[in-house]
Each structure stands twice: as structure tokens, then as C-alpha cells.
């Protein structure tokens, strides 16, 4: 056993307690969930509006990542281990998905084991030191340490860093996590000793304050690679204090996906797009035809076409180039009737030179 660790009496309540594991001890109150393949990973994110979205691994892979060297502090067992995490900054993910909670609200993070969950206040969530980690010390996050996706909250007690994150939900009031239900620390704050040792201070802002350090979200100009995907190069780093946080801003390329589809596939397409995290589009009913010049009845072949134009549903979706291939795949899958009959539709892709969000004047990729 490592030096200094003082297992309390209730250590036998833990399903899994391995104090000699590398690079840090493994502690799990409940049995870990069954392993997942990367392509099966779905992160269920839901804001206060109550519309959950399933985020796939390939989409998570497209988001910029940061490296963060911070300790994981387990105050209850009296150990800490400084490790290097790599992952998606939580505030980046939430602002990318445009998910937020009430200014004085909370977020809850659920482990895939369906038992353990913990809550964080909005200020804690928006702190740039909070990551959804995918890598530990340069290697993909091991299953034992919460792989493939875990929360890292360095400025709170270790139990707040939920392993095997499967869902994120916004709450107006404190959801009261598992640990507090078990009668432990109400907020997971570190005591003076640990704070002093690592200069770890929790965010001091009042509820509703902007985050301490604003991070710019960079959209990677890379096509989506199938999971398990090779890692994307890291463009920014943060030190333990969360200072000098600055990601390189890249030019984000926008594309317009025009899809002309069967009208009865409208709702199926909408649901499929939403499940893929594509929520914004413009659609209208049009009349259209292809090389068949419309519809003709089999009985009267000589007569030519009977119906010159057929009703179609026209979708116009403007997205960052990184998500283009995902959008096309989603539309294809939702609209292929598979009977070999013509009329399933077409997809066209055009470049968008610029975009402006009228309400805030945000430009380019920010406007989407």
C-alpha cells in the first residue's frame, strides 16, 4: 500500500479498492459498468429545456482537446496523485452544444453504472480546469480509471470526478449527489491542507458570473474519422493554475448541406439529425422531379408522365466542415427506403463564405 494512505473503516463498503494501481489508486463504491466499444459510446446531454441529445464518440472526437497536469486529490483516503489528463474542456462542450442551466443552477453527471452521480454548480462546471478526460498520462483512459470518458474536477474532492460518464443533465436546484446521500461532505470542498499543497482554489465567482478564464472554442478542420480514432493534435495547453489559457483559433469552414427528400421522411430525418446533435436547419415543402420527369402510371405508358412535379421536403443545413460527413451519413441512413425505387432524394454540398448571428453579431463558425 502507498505511503500515507489511511483507509477508513468503511473501506470494505467499496466494491473496488486497489491502492497499488498505477498511476493512481482505484476506488469505486459500486461495480463498474460493462466496457463499451468506442463506437457505442453515447453521451446523453440535456439542458433545462428537457430535450436530451445523444452525442456520439465521433462528434466528441471532433472537439478540441487540452492537456492539464493536475492532482487528483482523495481527501477521505488521504492521498493525491499528480497526473496529466487530456480531454475536452467541459465548458467548451456545453457551449458547443448550447446547453446551459439556470444562472444559479446545477449540472449532474451520471456514471454509466446507473447508480453513482454527482452534482456541480454552474460556476464549477464553467471553470476551465474541469475536463471530460479521454486520456491519462498520454494513453487512452483505462477502464479502471473511468475510461473511455470521465469527469476531472481538480479543485474538489476526488469523488466529484465521476468515472464512466454517460449522461449530463441540467438542474435548477442542487441534485444532491450519491456521496452526499451517503452522509459525506456536502460540497466536496478540499480542506486547507490540500488547498495549500496544490494552490487549488475553487471558483470564487457568484452564481451567474462569467467563467474565470474565457476559452475560445476552435473547430478542427478535420474530417470525422471512424472510432476508435487516432487522436487529434493538441493545439492548446493549460497549466495547473488554469492560467495562460488560450487556444489557437482556426478558420472554421462552413458548408451548406442541401437535401431534397421524400416528404414522409421529414420527421424521421429531424429525429436522426437531432440524435446526431444537428438541431438547426431550415426546411420547406417544394415541388421537384428528377430525370424521370415526374411520375407516370404503369398502365398508360404511351401517355407520358401523369404528374409532372412531386412534393418533396427541402432541407438546408449549415454546419462546420468537420461534421459534414456525419451529417451526410445521417441523412442517407434516414432516407434510404431500400426498395430500390427512385425518389429517395439527393444531397448537395455548397460552401458558405460567411455567417452572422443577427442577435449577437457572432461571425463564422460561432454563428452556427
Amino acid at each position, binding site marked *: 500500500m502507498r505511503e500515507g494512505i489511511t483507509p477508513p473503516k468503511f473501506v470494505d463498503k467499496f466494491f473496488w479498492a486497489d491502492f497499488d494501481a498505477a498511476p493512481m489508486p482505484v476506488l469505486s463504491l459500486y461495480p463498474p459498468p460493462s466496457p463499451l466499444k468506442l463506437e457505442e459510446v453515447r453521451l446523453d446531454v440535456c439542458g433545462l429545456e428537457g430535450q436530451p441529445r445523444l452525442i456520439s464518440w465521433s462528434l466528441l472526437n471532433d472537439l478540441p482537446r487540452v492537456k492539464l497536469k493536475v492532482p487528483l486529490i482523495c481527501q477521505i483516503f488521504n492521498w493525491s496523485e499528480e497526473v496529466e489528463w487530456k480531454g475536452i474542456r467541459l465548458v467548451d462542450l456545453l457551449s458547443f452544444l448550447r446547453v446551459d442551466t439556470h444562472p444559479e443552477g446545477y449540472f449532474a453527471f451520471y456514471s454509466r453504472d446507473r447508480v453513482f452521480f454527482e452534482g456541480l454548480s454552474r460556476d464549477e462546471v464553467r471553470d476551465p480546469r474541469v475536463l471530460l478526460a479521454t486520456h491519462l498520462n498520454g494513453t487512452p483512459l483505462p477502464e479502471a480509471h473511468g475510461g473511455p470518458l470521465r469527469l476531472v474536477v481538480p479543485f474538489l474532492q476526488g469523488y466529484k470526478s465521476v468515472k464512466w460518464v454517460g449522461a449530463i443533465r441540467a438542474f435548477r436546484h442542487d441534485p444532491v449527489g450519491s456521496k452526499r446521500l451517503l452522509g459525506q461532505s456536502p460540497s466536496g470542498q478540499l480542506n486547507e491542507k490540500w488547498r495549500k499543497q496544490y494552490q487549488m482554489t475553487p471558483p470564487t465567482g457568484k452564481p451567474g458570473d462569467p467563467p474565470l478564464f474565457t476559452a475560445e472554442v476552435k473547430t478542427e478542420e478535420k474530417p470525422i474519422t471512424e472510432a476508435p480514432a487516432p487522436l487529434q493534435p493538441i493545439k492548446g495547453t493549460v497549466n495547473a493554475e488554469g492560467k495562460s489559457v488560450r487556444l489557437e483559433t482556426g478558420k472554421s469552414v462552413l458548408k451548406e448541406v442541401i437535401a*431534397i427528400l421524400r416528404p414522409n421522411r421529414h420527421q424521421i430525418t429531424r429525429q436522426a439529425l437531432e440524435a446526431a446533435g444537428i438541431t438547426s436547419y431550415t426546411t420547406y415543402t417544394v*415541388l421537384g422531379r*428528377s430525370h424521370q420527369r415526374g411520375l407516370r402510371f404503369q398502365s398508360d405508358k404511351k401517355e407520358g408522365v401523369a404528374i409532372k412535379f412531386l412534393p418533396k421536403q427541402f432541407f438546408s443545413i449549415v454546419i462546420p466542415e468537420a461534421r459534414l460527413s456525419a451529417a451526410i451519413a445521417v441523412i442517407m441512413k434516414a432516407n*434510404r427506403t431500400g426498395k430500390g425505387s427512385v*425518389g429517395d*432524394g439527393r444531397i448537395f454540398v455548397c460552401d458558405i463564405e460567411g455567417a452572422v448571428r443577427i442577435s449577437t453579431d457572432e461571425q463564422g463558425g460561432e454563428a452556427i
Partner: protein
Amino acid sequence: MKMIRAIIRTEQEGKVLAHLEASGLYAMTKIPVLGRGQQRGIQVGRVSYGTLSKLMIILFVEEEDYEKAVEAIEAGAETDHPGDGKIFVQEVSEAYNIRTGMKLE
């Protein structure tokens, strides 16, 4: 491949379609729209119409058919009066057929 968006007089629709069909272009999408140009609509006596009913035709054509399509629309839509419409052309980078899942070249 190019995307052609033509905004034409609704009453010229039949003529434009006939010209396009004569050029061998059958595939298109049409949308009734409301629009106006430099004249800001039309004034008839004391009644002014801010927007006029127009028809938008969208065609996706190969590079070699693009001039043919523009000429056909022009020939069909022309009445030599203000309000005949506009033709906009945009580059299309990719195109897919959903039934076959194939990328169109």
C-alpha cells in the same frame, strides 16, 4: 457541378420548363416565393405591392450543361420588361444519390 437558382415570373413557368426540357434538362425543384427587385414591388394606381409572387427554380447541373441551362431559362423567362427575374449560380462541391448512396461525379 453547379447549383442554378432562377427566380422567374410565375406565368413564364411553362415556357421556361419547355425550354429546359428541349435542352434535355428535366431534373429540377420549384418553390413559390415572394420577392421584389430594385423597383421595390409594383405600384398600380394607388395600390402598391411590396412583394410579388415569383417562382424559384433550383437546378443542379453538370459543368458542361450549365451554360445551356442558363440560356434556356433566359429564353423562357424573357418578356423584356422589368421583373423577368434573376439567375444565381453557385458551385456545388459534393453531390450524393440517397437511393444508391453513391457520390455523383
